[in-house]
């Protein structure tokens, strides 16, 4: 009988990460190029209609204001789509068994899915940023802040995607998550407007939407100005991520809907 192998630490995590990245990269036209095109269409339409009429934060043109919002919206939606669609496809086709049979820890499982989803989100974000530069140069005043919100926001939505992917038994249940939660929360978070332009009541309501803080904090990285303090946005985003990560890890540790 052949000698058993001696396993290397982190190999399971790195392999699952590699597989998840390859999974979206092999269909990059659908998973990266298409969202970039979508964001560009938004940019073209809104900037054409509104650029001459609106300035934000005093003198920032509307098109420039719009770019970080669209980048972050694309990043968040694609991070969610990556982890959730990968998991539900594996569950429905049954190939999730190949991840349940090996001695992969639930932490490695979580980390690989999240990191792969963040990488897809970042790939889309960079794509939107580069493509938008054709129309307007957007300054990047504080790149570290922008990167921090991109990574934390991507991880938050990727975690939400893992929850949705584990919970949903059918594609329409997953679509409900996307259409009735992720999309409205993103659209109502200040992607297309500054909440300063809203009536006071709606400003208050915006402050209970964590998506607002992710997008507002990300925008601070570009303009050095934002509706809320970047520190408050960072705290809300980090706390939301910590809470969802704890819930997801508890679900994975129990094998909720994965290990009968």
């Amino acid at each position: 009988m052949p000698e058993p192998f001696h396993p290397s630490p982190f190999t399971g995590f790195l392999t699952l990460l590699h597989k998840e990245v390859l999974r979206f990269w092999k269909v990059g036209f659908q998973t990266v190029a298409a969202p970039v095109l979508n964001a560009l269409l938004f940019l073209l339409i809104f900037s054409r209609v509104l650029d001459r009429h609106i300035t934000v934060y005093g003198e920032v043109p509307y098109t420039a204001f719009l770019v970080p919002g669209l980048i972050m919206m694309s990043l968040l939606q694609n991070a969610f789509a990556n982890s959730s669609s990968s998991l539900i496809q594996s569950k429905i086709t049954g190939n999730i068994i190949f991840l349940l049979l090996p001695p992969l820890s639930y932490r490695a499982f979580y980390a690989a899915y999240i990191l792969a989803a963040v990488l897809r989100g970042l790939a889309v974000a960079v794509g939107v940023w580069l493509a938008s530069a054709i129309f307007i140069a957007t300054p990047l005043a504080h790149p570290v802040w922008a990167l921090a919100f991109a990574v934390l926001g991507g991880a938050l939505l990727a975690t939400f995607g893992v929850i949705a992917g584990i919970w949903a038994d059918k594609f329409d249940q997953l679509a409900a998550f996307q259409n009735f939660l992720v999309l409205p929360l993103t659209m109502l978070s200040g992607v297309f407007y500054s909440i300063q332009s809203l009536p006071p009541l709606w400003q208050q309501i915006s402050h209970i939407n964590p998506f607002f803080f992710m997008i507002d904090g990300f925008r601070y990285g570009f303009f050095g100005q934002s509706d809320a303090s970047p520190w408050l946005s960072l705290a809300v985003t980090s706390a939301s991520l910590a809470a969802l990560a704890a819930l997801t890890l508890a679900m994975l540790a129990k094998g909720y809907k994965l290990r009968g």
Partner: protein
Amino acid sequence: MTTPAIRVATLTKRYGNLQALAGIDLEIGQGEFFGLLGPNGAGKTTLISALAGLIRADSGKLEIMGRDVVANYRDARRRLGVVPQELVFDPFFTVREVLRFQSGYFGIRGNGAWIDEILHGLDLAARADTNMRTLSGGMKRRVLVAQALVHRPPVIVLDEPTAGVDVELRQSLWRFVRQLNADGHTVVLTTHYLEEAEALCGRIAMMKAGRIVALDTTANLLSSTAARRLKIRAERPAAALALGATAAGEWLEFSFDTPGDIETLLARLREAGAGVLEIAIGEPDLERVFVEVMRRA
């Protein structure tokens, strides 16, 4: 004393009102070729799933090569390879990619030589760089076997591996699995093809309604449970049927235990005027044993 390859102690699992496993006790020795038989819903797949950590048992203990599958799940899973019953695959990747990933999940890097050996052994080498989507059902089944072997597990569980597989592939699969067993791997097989279990397994457990209802060597099961059959064709079958024969197509069958019983039976048939035209002796087979055990259980 050698550690058993698999040890199951008072294992129970309930799904709602269904008692899927009702206190299973079982030990399978290292190097055995073991058969796990039973009708649908007997609990075979539930037992395998508990062994593989795919489900959690309600109570009891499970060990693979002495490693508890819950408390020491990493060590236990490294020692187990499972070929699942369902024909599942990942449509994004090629055969080689799938095997590399599976190695990596078990913590193994640089596994190319062993993967090549498995691909060769399962006649998959020519399809190594083919996408899983485009493979035939039989080829996909071979890849499932390959995936179960990438980490060189000492214990291999095959859950109905030949369901829907053509004869040629079935034979080449059994040649390969027999070689694995000859190399020292413990093999546990569930199948509905009882002739396969009879030919391959040294020991067999039969399950019904979550319990083991028979457990012995294949030879003992064949000799102790099922009587041999005297098969006749007769001019007047009704006379033979009146003596307790059962009809099997054109043939009529009597059970007997010792050769002396044959003389007695023939004498009674002569007296009854059955007019025996042809005689044959049927050896006991596992199918009959299985039917008998299930009827009694």
